[in-house]
């Protein structure tokens, strides 16, 4: 039997490195870049969230006119763009940057300067996109999908700034992804075979490959849009199926994007659940295969976003079947997580609460995904609020529960301080209630005929659902605020974090919190995907 608090890692020399503003601006240390990434993406998360609150105020009751239709269109466009491109995708790079080199026992990322470049390009791209709010005739207003001909006819330069900003963000993501691939495949410590790397590292690897394969499609599609808008080309002209060509290109990127976001979230859950259940992952191999299968299938399903464009029946059937197929590996993940909890000794520290909440909300999103994959049903619910509910249960539960769970999990490692446990637990419950209040009624709005992307509505039957959702959005906002306050307060007042506060399994818990600039003084032998658990067992056996 193994007891707590064995195998304390050897004390690592606590050398904080250079300090001060310029040391952060010029840093190429993956940990500092990870933290800067986190601050940048959380800033965009808060601004995207404030835009969502503005939308919920406008939709609180029928025929409301707090916000004009013109402003509403810009706000929902920038809300979607912000949440997808400036928060959910790069926040995975934030954690990937901080955690991946530590998890595989590396000194840093493969290309530290390239790493710094992807951080600053992200910030720069975001500023270019947002600059539409102050000049150029208003920010983009054609939805985060930017469908032509609407996006080609939009006056001013908001859409042009949006395209150029997205190009910059895309370059940031692609070079970051190449860096992750090189790091994971070349920088692993001796003994850290691919069959032993933590699940989070696997998911970041697949995430990176998917970014390299999918994002160029977006760049191509947007470049043609930019040329059509400004230089008289006619790639997307009506009459040559141009508008449909854009939709195909966009979604051939856009659906892989969903899993680019989802997989690292799954990876975080796969790290948290075994640690707090005190058990190994149930079916490590199955989870790895499921990750790769999802990454592959994600490229075959894009047409389910386009069932209503007049697609032929055989094509609709194909996209329905591939979309249903992706439910199978996703189900495997959920079953294996619960299998990991089964018979465990589960400690409901904040990270584990977030992980459990994630599994439950993601289950709802996955199951409503089967409804939208069934194309006759989709011909009813597509472009309605039902779909808004569905993708927030999928794409929204990842940042709110998986990413914030990961934040509670790794915050002690990043800062050397523990978050306030009681506040963490309370903020989970506020977020959980707020999330479901906001997004669950949206299923009912869609089923009763409310289309998405409407700046207002006249049907008073929809009032009650919208009022619940607006209330929920404010509860959700309070939850996010509680998390942020906890993060800021704990920097100064938090309990000092030991190297391994959770009884972790992976190498990042072997070094001090926060780790020294060179990460490790020494590494333990790596004989499984849980090297620290092996150490504890050896120590217990030696004492027995």
């Amino acid at each position, binding site marked *: 039997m193994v007891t707590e608090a064995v195998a304390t890692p050897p004390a690592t020399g606590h050398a904080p490195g250079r300090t001060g503003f310029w040391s952060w601006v010029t840093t190429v240390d993956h940990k500092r870049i990870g933290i800067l990434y986190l601050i940048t993406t959380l800033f965009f998360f808060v601004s995207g969230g404030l835009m969502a609150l503005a939308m919920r105020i406008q939709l609180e009751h029928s025929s409301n006119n707090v916000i004009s239709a013109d402003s509403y269109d810009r706000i929902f466009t920038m809300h979607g763009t912000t949440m997808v491109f400036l928060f959910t995708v790069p926040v995975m790079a934030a954690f990937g940057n901080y955690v991946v080199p530590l998890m595989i026992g590396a000194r840093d990322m493969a290309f530290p300067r390239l790493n710094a470049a992807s951080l600053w390009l992200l910030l720069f791209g975001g500023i270019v996109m947002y600059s539409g709010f102050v000049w150029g005739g208003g920010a983009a207003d054609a939805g985060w999908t930017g469908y032509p001909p609407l996006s080609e006819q939009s006056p001013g330069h908001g859409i042009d700034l949006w395209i150029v900003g997205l190009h910059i963000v895309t370059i940031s993501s692609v070079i970051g992804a190449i860096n992750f691939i090189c790091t994971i495949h070349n920088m692993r410590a001796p003994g850290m075979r691919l069959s032993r790397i933590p699940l989070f590292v696997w998911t970041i690897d697949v995430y990176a490959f998917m970014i390299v394969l999918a994002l160029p499609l977006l760049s191509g599609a947007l470049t043609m849009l930019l040329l059509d808008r400004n230089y008289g080309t006619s790639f997307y002209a009506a009459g040559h199926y141009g508008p449909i060509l854009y939709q195909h290109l966009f979604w051939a990127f856009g659906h892989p994007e969903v899993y680019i976001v989802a997989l690292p979230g799954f990876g975080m859950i796969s790290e948290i659940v075994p640690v707090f259940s005190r058990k190994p992952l149930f*079916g490590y191999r199955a989870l790895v295969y499921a990750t790769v299968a999802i990454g592959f299938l994600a490229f075959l399903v894009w047409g389910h976003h386009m069932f209503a464009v007049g697609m032929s029946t055989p094509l609709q059937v194909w996209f329905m079947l591939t979309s249903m197929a992706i439910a199978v590996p996703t189900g495997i993940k959920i079953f294996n997580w619960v299998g990991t909890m089964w018979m465990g000794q589960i400690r409901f520290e904040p990270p584990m609460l977030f992980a459990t909440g994630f599994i439950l909300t993601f289950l709802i999103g996955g199951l409503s995904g*089967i*409804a939208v994959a069934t194309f006759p049903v989709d011909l*009813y619910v597509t472009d309605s609020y039902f779909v808004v509910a569905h993708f927030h249960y999928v794409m929204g539960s990842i940042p709110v529960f998986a990413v914030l769970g990961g934040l509670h999990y790794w915050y002690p490692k990043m800062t050397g301080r523990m978050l306030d446990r009681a506040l963490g637990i309370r903020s989970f419950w506020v977020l959980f209630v707020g999330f479901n209040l906001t997004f669950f009624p949206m299923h009912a709005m869609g089923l009763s005929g409310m289309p998405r992307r409407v700046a207002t509505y006249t049907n008073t039957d929809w009032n009650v659902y919208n009022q619940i959702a607006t209330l929920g959005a404010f509860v959700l906002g309070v939850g996010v605020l509680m998390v942020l306050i906890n993060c800021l307060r704990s920097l100064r007042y938090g309990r000092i974090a030991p190297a391994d506060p959770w009884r972790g399994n992976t190498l990042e818990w072997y070094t001090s919190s926060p780790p020294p600039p060179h990460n490790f003084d020494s590494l333990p032998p790596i004989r499984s995907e849980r090297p620290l658990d092996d150490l504890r067992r050896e120590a217990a056996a030696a004492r027995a």
Partner: protein
Amino acid sequence: MTVAHRLRTLVAAVTAVVAPLMLAPAALADTATPENPAGPASHAIDDIYRAVIGTTMVIFILVGGWLVYSAIRFRARPGRPIDPPQMHGSSRLEWGWTIVPVLILVGLAGYTFHKLPDVKNAPSDSMVVSVLAQQFQFSYTYGGNSGAAQGKTPSTATTLVVPENTPVKLEVHAKDVAHDWWVPALGPKVDAIPGQTTTTWFRADHTGTFHGQCSEFCGVGHATMAITVKVVSASDWRTYAGGLK
């Protein structure tokens, strides 16, 4: 806590969860399903939706229940051994929860194929109506099988008048940007895309006025781009069609 006591608590908890679920369908019939279908196309969609949502609700109760049960049953408590059994997986279980979902999905896909003709295929004797979508209104021109109305475009641009029990095939065009024609109670929605003709169909089984609105974001007037379909009796239709100029 004795075993019997525990069992009683469990039964009470299960009842508390299951009872509302049994009563819920009646109360939620309207909020949890599509709008009252008024014809074969929307009926078929409603049937498929109910099959899918019924199946997924059962899965949700089973899997969600398993999760919540595990979370409560296996939470760490004082006096329990610190080190639980270290299971690394079970091939039999894992194959099981791979194959069973596949079978369920095959079943749902099969049922969808069975219902598909009603959703997709407009009968060949359908009345044809050409729909023109533009920022920010829909207008209609009657085509084949529309009797005296053929070739006419009503001046009341936003209202489409059709007879009951008559299949109507819509041929949808767009003038400026993409739009989408959707009347929830009647049938599947369809995008209107510049340079293309897309089609959908419906048949209303009773008279009445049905509302819908544009469902593809099309600019500042998107939210106010309303659709009204007025379904009238055969005799009222003849009067209406005869009066069109």
